[in-house]
């Protein structure tokens, strides 16, 4: 009946007036023709007119039926109901404003969190076929997320049948020089296919070609959009020009799109934004197998599952172990995981917890609005009764009432978009670093659709009970009673709503309480050093002047000495990796006591750091035993090492580490040729470096001369405020080499702060949600209790007139008000036992079932609820029996 539907739609949108006139004229003509016939048949005109009407049947009914056939009755009723609903809402301004605000907060919070959940957990990455992208980790014993060595990547690329391709990246830093001032840049060394795996096409020019990778190949470079605009003014003629980096000339072959980011997991040492990309300049296949540094991604072939890919990777790992002694010694395994899942793995629990929390808030908001609607339903009892008495079916009236509540919640939803946009902005300020990698998050169409959907659902949720209630009428009784209600009759559904609100609010409060305790614990935790008053910055002695270890050592030694002379500086030192600084590739490898047996050799994995004397003093780390390095160690390059307590305990369980010899698996030290042990001269407290809560790995510190590298960080302890200090430090560096930029200037505290960000985010959000829930629940409790007091004024007055004491009345009101609260608390407690264990992964220093938090939250919520009941109860006892009885 497409044709009929189209005609009906035309009828619905047609000009009502002319359609009506048309109908009117047709019916009038019919009646006139009939009357004329009858007059001709001998009737009087008056008789004829009446007979014609009688034979016609109901004219109005015909018109009604005709209209129904003409347009879209469903839509017309809806429009009418909406018009009527708007009028009713307009009449009850106070109610409307409160209900809309409540819903706007409830829905808006959902809009904001949903936008984040959608962007982080649901939306695919902006890459070609993102669902087939995998990250391939090398696994060595306990170390499950290690990078791959060159030969490993080449082997995978050549042998895999289930992967379309593999790509690799290694983040480095470099110095751009040339006509403009020197600039420190992040360099992505990539396989020639890497960029094309993550991007459809460059903004300008082309991606790398296979022949551009490897030793002796022409040096090509691709710029990021940011660098291209910053340094080349966004000139389209940049392609083909050359640029100097680290003393070599590179030809610019392309510019990446503006929105391109490398979304890699946190801790993979691959920053999302690099300045330039170059192909690996050496032959990966010929590199040593024991030097893993490449982060590998792979694209599965169409239709291949991750399980299949994993089992192929297992086979390849076995072959690699068979072919390379290095891999078999270290027990190499491979792990294939979806890129998306790996990136968001730490965010999932927090986001899902927040998403459920915000769902709870919406339910509480709905319960509140349902309560308001219930109160209104009793005020409107007369209207409803009248309509039913006039012949409206119950279904019709329910539909009308539901239309009204959905209208209400949709207006709330519209306001919620504003609330959501604002909340999202706030949320993005607080978001943890891991989320930052994913780029900005906006309110998009999906979020709008979601908002609309939950608005409608919320409208139905809060409208159903009141609509059912209002239409369950006993006509005779209601009309006779003048619309007044028997006390208590409405109480069940209201109390049920309060029970729900309190239960949900309690769970939220417990969740927030647990997060707050976690956060407090994180603030209390001793990171193993004293970050207050320490300023840090990076310096890269990367130019040719510092090519020899001696030149580089000399440079940093002089820098340390000169900075120490700056007024206000207490102590200063130089280190390869600052704690919590993820901007550089991490170094770690196996260490073992010289006397360890062969099996024990690959058991202690530790980070290694290259330091100058005075490092521990400058960051405020303390010695457990032994001594710091001294100038003599540096100058003479003595074979000494400092370990932290973790390494010391693992390598020498007997407790004596100083004076023992440590073997180093990796060739990071100048002693590797000898493979001799290095003497432990000191043991320091563990310095938390990756997480405030876990001792991820132990630490081994080598004097700089044993592990020379161009890129170092300075740690400056001083009372001078950073604004004054930074120019002085800059001047000191410039005095030594005016071409060296200093960058990443940050107080040490900023790094520690970053480590707390995820918890702070979850804590702040869950706290905000709990606060909203608490406010809503209290308004609900207060509303219901005071409403009941108001309705029972008469009854209370009678009781008092009959001799009830004020204290009895007071107790009674309190008891009745608190009963659903107590039931709700019990239910909430039970619910929390099911739900809080799910957030265990977010907690630190507190158990999910922490009795203090449970009791505290319960007491808090109960206390606030008591206050919400207290005010109406006080009003109840002030009732004057005489006035109350006259209230009749």
């Amino acid at each position, binding site marked *: 009946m497409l044709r*009929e539907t189209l005609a009906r739609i035309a009828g619905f949108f047609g000009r009502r007036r002319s359609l009506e006139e048309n109908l009117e004229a*047709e019916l009038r*003509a*019919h009646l006139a*023709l009939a009357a004329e016939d009858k007059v001709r048949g001998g009737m009087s005109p008056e008789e004829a007119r009446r007979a014609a009407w009688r034979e016609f049947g109901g004219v109005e*009914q015909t018109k009604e039926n005709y209209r129904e056939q003409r347009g879209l009755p469903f839509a017309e009723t809806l429009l009418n109901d909406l018009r009527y609903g708007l009028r009713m809402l307009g009449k009850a301004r106070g109610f409307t404003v409160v209900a809309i605000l409540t819903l706007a907060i409830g829905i808006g919070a959902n809009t904001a969190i949903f936008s984040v959940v959608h962007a982080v957990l649901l939306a695919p990455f902006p890459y070609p076929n993102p669902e087939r992208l995998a990250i391939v980790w090398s696994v060595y014993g306990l170390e499950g997320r290690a990078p791959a060595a060159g030969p490993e990547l080449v082997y995978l690329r050549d042998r895999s049948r289930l992967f379309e391709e593999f790509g690799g990246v290694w983040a480095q830093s470099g110095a751009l020089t040339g006509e403009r001032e020197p600039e420190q840049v992040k360099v992505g060394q990539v396989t020639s296919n890497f960029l094309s795996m993550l991007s459809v096409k460059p903004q300008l020019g082309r991606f790398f070609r296979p022949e551009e990778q490897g030793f002796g190949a022409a040096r090509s470079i691709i710029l990021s959009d940011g660098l291209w605009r910053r340094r080349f003014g966004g000139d389209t003629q940049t392609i083909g020009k050359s640029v100097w980096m680290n003393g070599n000339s590179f030809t610019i072959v392309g510019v990446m799109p503006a929105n391109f980011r490398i979304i890699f997991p946190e801790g993979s040492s691959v920053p999302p934004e690099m300045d330039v990309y170059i192909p690996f300049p050496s032959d990966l296949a010929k590199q040593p197998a024991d030097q893993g540094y490449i982060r590998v991604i792979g694209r599965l072939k169409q239709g291949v599952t991750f399980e299949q890919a994993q089992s192929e990777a297992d086979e390849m790992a076995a072959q690699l172990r068979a072919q390379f002694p290095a891999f078999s010694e270290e027990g190499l395994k491979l792990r294939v995981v979806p890129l998306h899942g790996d990136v968001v793995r730490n965010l999932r629990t927090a986001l899902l917890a927040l998403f459920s929390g915000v769902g709870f808030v919406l339910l509480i908001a709905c319960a509140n609005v349902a309560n308001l609607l219930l109160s209104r339903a009793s005020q409107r009892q007369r209207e409803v009764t009248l309509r039913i008495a006039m012949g409206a079916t119950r279904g019709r009236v329910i539909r009308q009432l539901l239309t009204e509540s959905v209208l209400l919640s949709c207006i709330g939803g519209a306001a919620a978009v504003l609330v959501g946009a604002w909340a999202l902005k706030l949320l993005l300020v607080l978001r943890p670093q891991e989320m930052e990698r994913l780029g900005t998050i906006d309110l998009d169409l999906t979020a709008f659709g979601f908002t609309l959907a939950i608005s409608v659902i919320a409208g139905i949720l809060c409208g159903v009970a009141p609509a059912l209630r209002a239409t369950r009428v006993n006509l005779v009784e209601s009309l006779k009673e003048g619309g007044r209600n028997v006390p208590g009759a409405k109480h069940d559904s209201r109390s049920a709503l309060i029970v729900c609100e309190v239960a949900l609010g309690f769970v939220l409060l417990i969740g927030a309480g647990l997060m707050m305790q976690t956060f407090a614990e994180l603030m209390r935790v001793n990171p193993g050093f004293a970050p207050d008053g320490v300023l840090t910055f990076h310096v890269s002695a990367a130019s040719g002047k510092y090519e020899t270890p001696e030149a580089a050592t000399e440079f940093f030694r002089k820098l340390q000495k000169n900075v120490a002379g700056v007024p206000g500086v207490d102590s200063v030192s130089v280190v390869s990796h600052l704690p919590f600084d993820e901007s550089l590739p991490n170094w770690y490898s196996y260490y073992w006591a010289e006397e360890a047996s062969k099996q024990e050799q690959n058991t202690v994995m530790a980070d290694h750091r290259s330091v100058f004397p005075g490092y521990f003093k400058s960051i405020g780390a303390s010695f457990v035993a032994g001594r710091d390095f001294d100038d003599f160690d540096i100058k003479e390059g003595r074979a000494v090492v400092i370990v932290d307590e973790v390494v010391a305990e693992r390598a020498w369980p007997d407790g004596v580490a100083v004076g023992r010899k440590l073997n180093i698996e990796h060739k990071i030290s100048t002693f590797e040729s000898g493979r001799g042990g290095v003497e432990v001269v000191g043991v320091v407290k563990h310095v938390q470096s990756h997480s405030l809560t876990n001792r991820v790995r132990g630490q081994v510190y080598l004097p700089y001369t044993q592990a020379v590298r161009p890129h170092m960080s300075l740690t400056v302890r001083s009372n001078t405020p950073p604004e004054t200090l930074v120019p002085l430090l800059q001047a000191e560096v410039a005095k030594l080499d005016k071409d060296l930029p200093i960058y990443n200037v940050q107080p040490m505290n900023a790094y520690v702060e970053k480590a707390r960000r995820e918890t702070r985010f979850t804590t702040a959000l869950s706290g905000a949600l709990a606060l909203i829930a608490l406010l809503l629940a209290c308004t609900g409790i207060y509303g219901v209790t005071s409403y009941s007091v108001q309705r029972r004024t008469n009854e209370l007055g009678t009781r008092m007139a009959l001799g009830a004491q004020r204290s009895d009345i007071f107790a009674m009101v309190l008891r009745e008000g608190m009963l659903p609260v107590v039931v709700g608390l019990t239910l909430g407690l039970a619910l929390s036992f099911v739900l809080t264990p799910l957030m265990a992964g977010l907690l630190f220093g507190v158990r999910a079932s922490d009795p203090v938090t449970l009791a505290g939250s319960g007491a808090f919520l109960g206390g606030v609820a008591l206050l919400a009941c207290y005010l109406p109860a006080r009003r109840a006892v002030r009732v004057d029996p005489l006035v109350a009885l006259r209230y009749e």
Partner: protein
Amino acid sequence: MTPPRGEVLQGTLDLIVLKTLDAMGPLHGYGIAMRIQQVSEDLVKLNQGTLYPALLRLEQRGWINSKWGVSDNNRKAKYYTLTKSGRKQLVTETESWERMASVIGRLIAGAEGT
């Protein structure tokens, strides 16, 4: 005593209207009503008002057309005409009615036979 008048059988009104227009050519609503009563010799009780939603429905389905015209006694009235697809529909509906009628006829005859 007037013979009992039957209600118009549900679903047959369309057929009746189409057939009337087929037989009589363009007619206004009142004319259709008169014609039906005439043919049925007043045995069918037609609530004339019910005709109009039905006419609208037939028009929406494209089986009839309507146009304002002037009646014999100079009154403006809306005239309905059968369309080509309306004629086709009439054939289908007539066939299905006849099939139905014969089935019911046979059923009744069979029941009487036992």
